[in-house]
């Protein structure tokens, strides 16, 4: 294992960062692996920016700067004086914007999509390497443009990540014409990057699979990214159109969202959520795909119901386009329409449930390896279930009217986004790190990091269900200003303490990540004894990935096949002449007679 000898000369050059050219490669490269790493480091950096904003938010909620103390003084003694209500609004707007557009999307789609797709389907690079690299820089520019809002007159955009009109579209209402414009411009530019990535991925997956890599032999991670690419392709441009209208309304006097001149504020909501609901599946599908693979490898069992998993993702992709109205139940909607959106939303829970049961089926009876990647993947499944359940509550109009715009919603989307996407991100990093950097991350530190994150995450976000049902509204800068929320203040302070614990636990991850680059145990080609193509090549793989184009003979999940010496069979291993072909073709272990 430790002799991870790199045979190809060009592969070796990947290890030499000593000379200046080595670093230049990380600024401009057409290699999908380097681009994946650019996205990885970029989005991890933004993760800490977004996390910092979140801690400021939580601090203000626990110790409001506007709280009237019992002695009549204004401002909790522990409060941060610079957080006034407008700045608070900017904080939550930018927190969500950063997390959605600059962390979860780029890390799941940009980083892992780029890194894994060519390696897993057996080709040398993406179809359009130049567009691929451009997409990274365009993405980075979009992030800087949005964050630049903090430094302009009026401050950053403050109308929420949903930027509802007319709050967002009238400068007099939002108080920051420039900040809001930068936000919309950033969203537009971010969309360009996503679209460049999306058509690149689709072209690559359809046309560049290695011989024998049929669609139904692709690992679920690739399937998930494939479907996600379609969602990006078709949903993002609608947001771009809305963003353009917003910029025009703010700066050029158009009246799209201006009711005084015949415009329709609700138009923004429809366009935004037409994008917005597919978007939440963009944020979770890649996570689902990668977790499926990690669960299977670490249970030493094939994925349960592989085809059902694929069809469920396709169904989710389709249905995701017809449920957007569930965000608008209280916006003034025809009741029949509202019922239709409620039902379609509940229908989307069916494929989600299929996936959940199949994950359970996958680990059922397996010889589970509880490594850090696996623990995070298991956390993904359980936390996604909680978030999915609260989703179904909210899908029913009467319940929704009660909980809409409360912390119950905040609990819901943090369970699916942190509990789901971010745990999956950790799982994927721990799992593919050895492939990316040739060394394993430290397992002990990893497990401590996992345990702390899991505990603090639940301590932080579960009580939000309670304060939400207790009537606490989202997007308020000072809960103590409301009579009915004062009794909840101790819970809010508790949540803040848990959030701080959650934030600081991530430093352990950071330490482990960077320490392991040099000091991690050498990984070898296939540390997890997995079957897919990326594990047949060196870690990290050389330029061009495969010395010769691999030929694929079997599905991605041949674990514990009876009658086989090893408990996994690589996808590239030719059929064993001693076994009946039918037994090998099965994706599930069957007794061989």
């Amino acid at each position, binding site marked *: 294992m430790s002799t991870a000898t790199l045979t190809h000369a060009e592969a070796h050059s990947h290890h030499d960062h000593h000379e200046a050219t080595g670093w230049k490669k990380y600024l401009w490269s057409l290699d999908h692996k380097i681009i994946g790493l650019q996205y990885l480091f970029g989005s991890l950096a933004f993760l800490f920016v977004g996390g910092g904003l979140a801690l400021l938010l939580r601090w203000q909620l626990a110790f409001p700067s506007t709280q009237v103390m019992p002695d009549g003084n204004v401002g909790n003694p522990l409060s941060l004086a610079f957080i006034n209500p407008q700045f608070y609004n900017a904080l939550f707007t930018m927190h969500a914007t950063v997390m959605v557009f600059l962390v979860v999307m780029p890390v799941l789609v940009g980083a892992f999509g780029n890194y894994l797709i060519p390696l897993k389907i057996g080709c*040398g690079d993406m179809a*359009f390497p130049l567009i691929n690299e451009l997409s990274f820089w365009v993405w980075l520019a979009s992030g800087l443009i949005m964050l630049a809002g903090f430094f302009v007159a009026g401050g950053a955009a403050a109308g929420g990540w949903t930027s509802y009109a007319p709050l967002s579209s009238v400068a007099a209402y939002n108080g920051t014409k420039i900040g809001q414009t930068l936000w919309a411009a950033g969203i537009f530019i971010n969309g360009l990057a996503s679209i460049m990535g999306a*058509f690149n991925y689709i072209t690559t997956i359809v046309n560049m699979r290695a011989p024998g890599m049929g669609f139904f032999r692709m690992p679920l991670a690739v399937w998930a990214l494939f479907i996600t690419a379609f969602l990006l392709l078709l*949903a993002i441009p609608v947001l771009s159109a809305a963003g353009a209208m917003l910029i025009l309304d703010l700066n050029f006097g158009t009246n799209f969202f201006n009711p005084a*001149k*015949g415009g329709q504020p609700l138009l923004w909501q429809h366009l935004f959520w037409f994008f917005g609901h597919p978007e939440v599946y963009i944020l979770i599908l890649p996570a689902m795909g990668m977790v499926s693979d990690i669960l299977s490898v670490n249970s030493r069992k094939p994925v349960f119901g592989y085809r059902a998993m694929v069809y469920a993702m396709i169904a989710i992709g389709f249905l995701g386009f017809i449920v957007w109205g569930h965000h608008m139940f209280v916006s003034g909607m025809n009741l029949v329409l509202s019922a239709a959106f409620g039902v379609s939303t509940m229908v989307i829970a069916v494929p989600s449930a299929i996936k959940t049961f199949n994950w359970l089926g996958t680990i059922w009876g397996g010889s589970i390896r509880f490594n850090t990647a696996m623990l995070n993947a298991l956390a993904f499944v359980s936390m996604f279930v909680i978030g999915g359940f609260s989703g179904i509550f909210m899908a029913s109009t009467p319940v929704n009217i009660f909980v809409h715009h409360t912390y119950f919603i905040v609990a819901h989307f943090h369970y699916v986004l942190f509990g789901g996407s971010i745990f999956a991100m950790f799982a994927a990093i721990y799992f593919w790190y050895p492939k990316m950097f040739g060394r394993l991350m430290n397992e002990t530190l990893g497990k401590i990091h996992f345990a702390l994150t899991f505990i603090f995450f639940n301590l932080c976000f579960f009580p939000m269900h309670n304060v939400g049902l207790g009537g606490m509204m989202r997007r308020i800068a000072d809960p103590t200003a409301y009579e009915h929320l004062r009794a909840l203040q101790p819970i809010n302070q508790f949540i803040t303490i848990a959030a701080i614990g959650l934030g600081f636990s991530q430093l352990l991850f950071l330490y482990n990540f960077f320490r392991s680059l040099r000091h991690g145990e050498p990984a070898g080609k296939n540390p997890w004894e997995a079957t897919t193509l990326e594990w047949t090549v060196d870690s990290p793989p050389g330029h061009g990935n495969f010395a010769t184009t691999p030929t694929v003979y079997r599905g991605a999940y041949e674990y514990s096949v009876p009658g086989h010496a090893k408990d996994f069979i690589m996808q590239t291993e030719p059929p064993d002449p001693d076994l009946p072909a039918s037994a090998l073709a099965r994706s599930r272990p069957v007794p061989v007679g």
Partner: protein
Amino acid sequence: MSSAIVTAAHDSSAPGAQRFTLPKFGMLVFLASEAMLFAGLIGGYIVLRLAQGPGNWPPPGAPEIGVKIPPTFLNWVMIINTAILLTSSLTYHWGETRMRKGGSGLLGYGLTALFGAIFLGVQAWEWLHLKHEGMWLDTYGTYGSCFFTMTGFHGAHVFLGLLAILLVTWRAILRQMRLFSGQAPTGSHTCEELTGYYWHFVDVVWIFLYSILYVV
């Protein structure tokens, strides 16, 4: 899927023999995204227009751009302009056909560039004309907003397409010079094919925009 196009591993720098297919496929997928951009704009237009109720679109006093019988002068200008844009798709196709048969396609491509430029020029004239009549992004409620935004988005696409066609024309000039000097034209047709897809797409979008902005 052994029939799938497989780029030779290792030399991702050399796109391989299939480089014609991948870019075309990618362009088609990309155009699906472009279609959704215009679908978003058109959807918004329909919502805003229906919200005005019957008889209020165009709003009273706004310059008449809708097609009348008999057509007004402005009507004729835009009908002809539309015909010019549609013809440019035909000339482009003609250029491509000539090129595939070993010619340069210069005349077809050159005419396309000319027609594209005329279309943009006339549209700029129409914009100025309407602005002069008092219609702009911020007047007549959402009427002006929709008109200028949608034609503006489309015009920007035509402009990008025109740049691509100028490149294609330049390549045709080079081919023609080789032909004059008795050599056979070489090189791939990828650039021409991609530009063609894009240009035809922009034309089709115009048919939709023309229908809802001027006719219906």
